[in-house]
């Protein structure tokens, strides 16, 4: 089943610009009309027209900038609606999605198409057309021939017959290659896809290349192109239920060990690691303690168990001084018996980013994260990056730039700098002259007043 929302770029752009869907509008890219909607087409605006020509045909045309990200973002909502009906949705491009027809569940394929249309119209998408066929190409063409909020069902095995009578210009929607091929086929006198399908296969491949051959196979209904359905995000939470509820931190910690291990393993199964995990503890059916823990690297099962311990211990001893006076036996107790501990991954990252590389050291990302942690401890500008610059004294020839900032106003290094201090560069360079230690002799200045070379 293919669901087609025509002129999706215009719909998405008008939605964002809060314009009326009935007003003529066009999306422009590089001063050419890329997509226009029905009212604009009625005024004579066509794809590929120049902006000025389009405005001459239709002065009230709303001009919208092209933005593929916006189209994809807006289409995410449509995907979600169809995914609620049936998983395994593949977004072919913004405005076009495919899903295996959920015919047997809804009775007939017609009923399934009607359900999908209904769901989308309820979700606020007005112009929806649905096509159902054996293969993807036929289903797309069927959707294109359907009326607004309607559907076309091609019977099983009926694809070649359906495609035969379609004119070749349906290939125009297949990108620039398709447009080129349409021109060529029309000049060759081939008016319908059936004409192309009747030609011998090897001749088509010789004359029209692999793309032409694939179009011929599609026109004959031979190409069973399958689509890679997107997998809904997997459920990665893990929880452990205590029956009866436990009231000792030690017991809870010990019992959550296997769950923590399962949590880490199931993440590893998806080749993910968690760097931020929310630990929730429930008592009497309500979440009594919830906290997000971040890890500089990634959580192992042991780290998670530690976090549970710390979290529950601190939650149990919030009463401050009173808790310090409690007997040792009681310090490990929590306020209410905990009946459930849940691990929710907040931040997951691909495990590859955290692995030790075979061809080098750990990735730079890891370093960035570690340095950010140090910055959190000692302040943003306490972590520095050394850079060289031009200058005369050793102290002037270097700069320590705060980490994460770009070095600006550096003096160029490749100038001659006459009068610079000669000799090997000092290993220690003092920002301010340290107090002199040498004995003062008559006629000399303290040795500490110039940058010391060497070390001490």
């Amino acid at each position, binding site marked *: 089943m293919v669901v087609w929302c025509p002129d999706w770029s215009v719909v998405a752009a008008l939605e964002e610009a809060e314009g009326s869907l009935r007003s003529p509008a066009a999306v422009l890219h590089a001063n050419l009309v890329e997509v226009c909607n029905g009212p604009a087409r009625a005024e004579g605006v066509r794809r590929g027209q120049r902006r000025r020509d389009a405005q001459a045909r239709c002065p009230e045309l709303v001009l919208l900038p092209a933005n593929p990200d916006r189209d994809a973002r807006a289409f995410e909502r449509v995907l979600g609606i169809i995914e609620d009906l049936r998983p395994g949705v593949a977004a072919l491009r913004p405005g076009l999605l495919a899903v295996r027809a959920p015919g047997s569940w809804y009775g007939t394929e017609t009923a399934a198409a009607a359900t999908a249309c209904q769901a989308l119209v309820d979700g606020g998408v007005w112009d929806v057309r649905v096509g159902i066929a054996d293969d993807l190409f036929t289903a797309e063409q069927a959707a294109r021939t359907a009326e607004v909020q309607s559907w076309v069902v091609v019977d099983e095995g009926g694809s070649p017959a359906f495609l035969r009578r379609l004119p070749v210009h349906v290939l125009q929607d297949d990108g620039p290659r398709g447009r080129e091929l349409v021109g060529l086929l029309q000049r060759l006198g081939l008016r319908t896809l059936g004409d192309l399908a009747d030609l011998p296969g090897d001749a088509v491949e010789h004359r029209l290349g692999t793309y032409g051959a694939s179009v011929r196979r599609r026109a004959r209904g031979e190409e069973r192109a399958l689509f890679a359905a997107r997998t809904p995000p997997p459920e990665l939470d893990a929880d452990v239920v205590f029956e009866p509820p436990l009231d000792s931190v030690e017991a809870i910690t010990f019992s959550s060990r296997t769950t923590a291990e399962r949590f880490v393993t199931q993440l590893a199964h998806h080749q993910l690691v968690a760097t931020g995990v929310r630990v929730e503890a429930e008592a009497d059916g309500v979440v009594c303690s919830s906290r997000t823990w971040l890890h500089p690297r990634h959580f192992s099962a042991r780290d998670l168990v530690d976090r549970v311990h710390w979290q529950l211990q601190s939650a149990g001893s919030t009463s401050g001084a009173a808790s310090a006076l409690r007997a040792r036996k009681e310090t490990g107790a929590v306020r209410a018996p905990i009946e459930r501990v849940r691990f929710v991954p907040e931040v997951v990252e691909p495990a590859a980013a955290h692995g*030790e590389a075979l061809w080098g*050291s*750990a990735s730079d990302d890891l370093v960035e994260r570690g340095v950010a942690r140090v910055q959190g401890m000692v302040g943003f500008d306490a972590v520095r990056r050394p850079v*060289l610059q031009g200058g005369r004294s050793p102290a002037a020839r270097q700069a320590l730039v705060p980490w994460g900032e770009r070095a600006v106003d550096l003096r160029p290094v490749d100038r001659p700098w006459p009068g610079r201090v000669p000799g090997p*560069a000092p290993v220690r360079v003092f920002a301010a002259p340290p107090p002199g230690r040498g004995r003062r002799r008559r006629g000399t200045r303290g040795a500490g007043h110039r940058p010391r070379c060497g*070390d001490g």
Partner: protein
Amino acid sequence: MSSARSITALDPGRSVVEQLRERVAAMERRPAAQPVATLPVLADLVPLQAGSTYAVDSASLALALVAGASRAGEWVGFAGCADFGVEAAAELGVELSRTVLVPDPGEHWLEVTAALVDVLRVVVLRPPASVSERTAGLLESRLRTRSSVLVVQGDWPRAEARLSVERSVWTGLASGTGQLEERRARVVVRRGARAPQHADLAWPGAARIEAREVERVREIRASG
């Protein structure tokens, strides 16, 4: 993630498969068993091992220990070295774009060093006046679980090896004229109960001096 990864060059003289096999074997062992790249002049004296602590008594030696790893594409860090000489580091081959400085960690020096050890390969630390046995133990247990090297400039309770400069001489200065040209120093490596090893190094560049040239240094000293 960023795909910018530093790549360690393989030794062209040996078979690639064999070297990769060694690396895989090193990764499968606990991290501490990995060797860390060291400057060729120091490689036979103090081959750095991940998970170990090395004590040095001068900034130039600390820089020389770090330079090898940095040249090989590793990240390095300096904690507490407010007087870091950028030019000298660059001359020795330290890659400045992969260097993290925390000039003055103050009272947080232990936490900062532990965080740096988590992500960097070699960390140079200039600790405050006195470090207790327990504090050093904390940092060392962190080192063992990560594959990092700690180079301490100053006193440290336990160290795999201690490097110190025994005597050092500058050449290039005459009486009243001339300029500093070269520094030659005798470095002593003490590790455990083993007999101390000696080596003569020359800066800039931390080059090894042959015994014949050492005699010349002696002569210069005697004449100067």
